[in-house]
């Protein structure tokens, strides 16, 4: 019998470490002047340098250095007074020079940390994630394997190479082992990547679009029996391209490893690829034999010696931290801790903020995004923001406030927008969801209700106000839910001499 997550956690303790690659949004590449636009025709953003043509030489993009230092500062790192590029040597067709210009033992930023908060059984808990290093490197090109069943190299007839991405500046942010996450490892992983992404976004250094690969997460996971003093063998899961996937990948990997150990098998040190559909990981490259990258200092580039005064200037100009911003929002909106955490962990703070900025009342905005919309998103296994726009939600909330929609009708409008029936106004039009607020039309229904339940009506006349519920319900039913319940109540009570 296969162990589920809870059973796996009873026997084993997980260990987590994360590596995040961020594509910087500089206008030009790391070592040449080529453009970095996403989605350009293959090989149209290349030159002798990023194609690694014989004789070409790299020149460092100063903006990339600045962005890297700002990232380091935002992550509480020390900025190295002297850092260097190094060559990481290995052969791969989509890497033009067959070495990657990266940083090795002298990275630009070291020893930082990032605090993340998650909701646990014991309430909100803060985990400190130590950052080992932040270093710069260049991205590789892309291989497209044609003719195989899965788009993988095995079984492909041929491969196409696109070097547009080759040389795009990357920053790699590596954590140390994150201690004490235990069963919350998946949530901590997700919260870390989310927090990091928010910081990077606030710095304006990257598009941080996981689905486009401008932010990529590799999760290093191992497990060890609860009584063990040593760490288990780790796997490195790649291709994790959404926050939800980060959480799923870590969870899936813990379950997989636990079941392997249960079956008496050992964990192989390897890279694994996350499968979006199944939530499982597939075996990739073995790392059993440590690859020898033959690092050595890049002789074509000078060491980076950053002026301390300039670093101070950058530090002072850092934007407000997302955590500070959140605190301000929480106070302004009067949101309880737990609900604030839920909103942040659901990745919906920015969306709710946008909705509020468009005029929606904060509590309403929060409740729509975290309630109905999240529920529908969950059903469809997608992100809520992919279903409906903040502007549409704000519009719906406004329509409720003005009495043009009831909550019940609004849910139908949301459903219609999600189904692609158009914006809220169009859905209301097409579905005929207008609230019945015409007094005479309502009075017809009210009188019909009184006629069908004369005894209830009598009780109300006698002062039993709560009895009105039954009649209001009947009216609502008769109008197909399109009546404004408050209005019905008002008219009914008035009609029975209680108004």
């Amino acid at each position, binding site marked *: 019998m296969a162990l589920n997550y809870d059973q796996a956690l009873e026997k084993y303790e997980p260990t987590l470490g994360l590596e995040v690659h961020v594509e910087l949004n500089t206008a030009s590449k790391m070592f040449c002047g080529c453009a970095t636009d996403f989605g350009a025709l293959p090989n149209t953003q290349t030159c*002798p340098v990023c*194609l*690694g*043509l*014989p*004789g*070409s*030489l*790299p*020149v*460092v993009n100063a903006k990339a250095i600045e962005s890297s230092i700002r990232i380091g500062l935002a992550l509480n790192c020390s900025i190295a007074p002297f850092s260097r590029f190094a*060559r990481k*040597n290995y*052969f791969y*067709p989509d890497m*033009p*020079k*067959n*070495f990657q210009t990266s940083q090795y033992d002298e990275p630009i930023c070291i020893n930082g940390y990032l605090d993340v908060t998650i909701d646990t059984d014991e309430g909100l808990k803060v985990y400190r994630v130590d950052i080992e290093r932040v270093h710069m490197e260049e991205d590789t090109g892309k291989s497209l394997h044609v003719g195989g069943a899965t788009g993988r190299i095995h079984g492909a007839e041929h*491969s196409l*190479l696109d070097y547009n991405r080759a040389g795009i500046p990357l920053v790699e942010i590596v954590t140390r082992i994150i201690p004490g996450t235990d069963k919350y490892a998946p949530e901590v992983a997700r919260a870390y990547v989310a927090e990091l992404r928010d910081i990077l976004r606030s710095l304006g250094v990257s598009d941080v679009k996981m689905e486009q690969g401008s932010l990529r997460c590799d999760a290093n996971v191992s497990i060890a029996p609860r009584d063990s003093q040593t760490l288990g063998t780790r796997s490195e899961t790649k291709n994790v391209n959404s926050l939800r996937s980060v959480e799923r990948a870590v969870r899936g990997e813990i379950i997989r490893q636990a079941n392997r150990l249960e079956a008496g098998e050992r964990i192989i040190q390897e890279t694994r690829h996350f499968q979006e559909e199944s939530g499982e990981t597939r075996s990739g490259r073995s790392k059993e034999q*440590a690859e*020898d990258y*033959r*690092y*050595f200092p890049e*002789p*074509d*580039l*000078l060491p980076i010696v950053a002026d301390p005064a300039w670093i101070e200037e950058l530090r002072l100009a850092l934007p407000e931290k997302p955590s500070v911003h959140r605190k301000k929002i929480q106070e302004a909106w009067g949101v309880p801790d737990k609900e604030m955490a839920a909103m942040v962990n659901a990745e919906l703070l920015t969306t709710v903020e946008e909705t509020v900025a468009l005029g929606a009342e904060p509590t309403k905005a929060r409740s729509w995004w975290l309630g109905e919309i999240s529920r529908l998103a969950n059903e469809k296994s997608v992100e809520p923001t992919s279903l409906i726009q903040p502007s549409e939600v704000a519009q719906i909330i406004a329509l409720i406030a003005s009495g043009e929609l009831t909550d019940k009708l609004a849910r139908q409008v949301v459903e219609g927008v999600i189904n692609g029936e158009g914006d809220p106004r169009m859905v209301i039009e097409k579905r005929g969801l207008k609230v019945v607020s015409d007094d005479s039309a309502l009075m017809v229904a009210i009188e019909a209700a009184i006629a069908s339940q004369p005894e209830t009506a009598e009780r109300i006349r006698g002062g039993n106000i709560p009895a009105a519920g039954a009649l209001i319900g009947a009216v609502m039913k008769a109008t197909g839910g399109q009546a404004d319940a408050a209005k019905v109540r008002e008219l009914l009570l008035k009609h029975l001499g209680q108004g």
Partner: protein
Amino acid sequence: MSTPIISQTAAQMSAELVAGSVTAVELTNAHLDRIAAVDGDVHAFLHIDREGALAQANAVDASRKAGEKLHPLAGVPLALKDVLAQKGVPTTCGSKMLEGWRPPYDATVVTNLKKAGVVILGKTNMDEFAMGSSTENSAYGPTRNPWDLSRIPGGSGGGSSAALASFEAPLAIGTDTGGSIRQPAAVTGTVGVKPTYGAVSRYGLVAFSSSLDQAGPCARTVLDTAMLHEVIAGYDPKDSTSINAPVGKMVEAAKKLDIKGMKIGVVKELGGEGYQSGVTIRFNEALEALVSAGAEIVEVSAPSFEYALAAYYLIAPSEASSNLARFDSMRYGIRVGDDGSRSAEAVMNMTREVGFGKEVKRRIILGTYALSSGYYDAYYGSAQKIRTLIKRDYDAAFVKVDVLVSPTCPTTAFKIGEKSNDPVAMYLNDVCTIPVNLAGIGSMSLPCGLAPEDGLPVGFQIMSPAMKDELMYQVGGTLEAALQSSWGKPLYASAPELAVK
């Protein structure tokens, strides 16, 4: 000389062009004819760009006719070592690997030459990827020494030096990683200069060892190299290791002909036992000439030089193993084994097996090993420390003296095939030139006579502190004038007549 104009110096040709007694097209044709007549034997060129050269020459003549202000070297022909990228012109680096490759861009050196109106005749032969001291490692056959066709012209830039000695070109560009400009100059009786590292842009120079490679001027006289130096040197934002400082006045220094009061250091470790007697004799005569010109000779010790060769043969192959990784058949050059059944990795392997020669493979293996995990500190790490010690030896010496001197190489030109099967004997040829590259300073080789025992040219090396390349031109120009006046004519004029076909 069969054609007088080609035996002139570049400075003389420049004067004739300015005076209008010869046109750039005439001068270019004279050299193209000379190449056609003698290069079958010498094999200095891998590619002759007749059309491109004549087009450039025509453009210079037209500009001159239009009264435009031209660089003194405008219209003077030049031979370009095949390790520098020239747009649209085959660039092979002497390797089968790059057969058929035509770069889509110009090296900065080439851009500078074109800007000055220097006429590029073609690409010269070299040891494959500049690895060698004899030009025997070229995939396209060896170049022969115009002084004795059974002997090597030096290497790796044997094509450039042979082109000068055989009057196929008055100017040439070489590159020097461990002596590839100076040793060929020495054994062909010509002048070769390795400028301070960073003085000439490496952009477009196909890298052998990035931290050591440096392009430089080659010619038959010190003044000609100085003129060419000023054309090719200068800050280049495309090369991060390029020095951002104005180019010194090399021509002025070469013309000074005055070294009174200068202190010249003889490096104790570079000479004596193991050096051919004729080399030592001519070297000592040159020292006397310097003393007569008013210089003071001081003996200087550089104890770390003993380890220079060993350090060099770790650093250069290490960098080469990485620099040459890009030759994988995916984007340019030859491709072997791509029949639709093999993986990219298999095709890479087969291409590299066929495309690289023996010496290149030897150095890639050596460098790969030296950089390997567990060996890095012992090999690459130690070599870098020696490099620091060598720099310190130079720094200490330059406190006491203005320039340092030594023979350029321990022997005169050896026979083709003599050392092909003994790599270490071949490597030892560069024992005097290598410390210069490790320290990044400037150095020149100029002829100091013919060895009495074999009648072959001997080279005299002058080393100047980093960023003070003017000093070697000043000393070189003075020494050249003194020696030529004692010989009655330039050394190159004593070269045997080549058979004309």
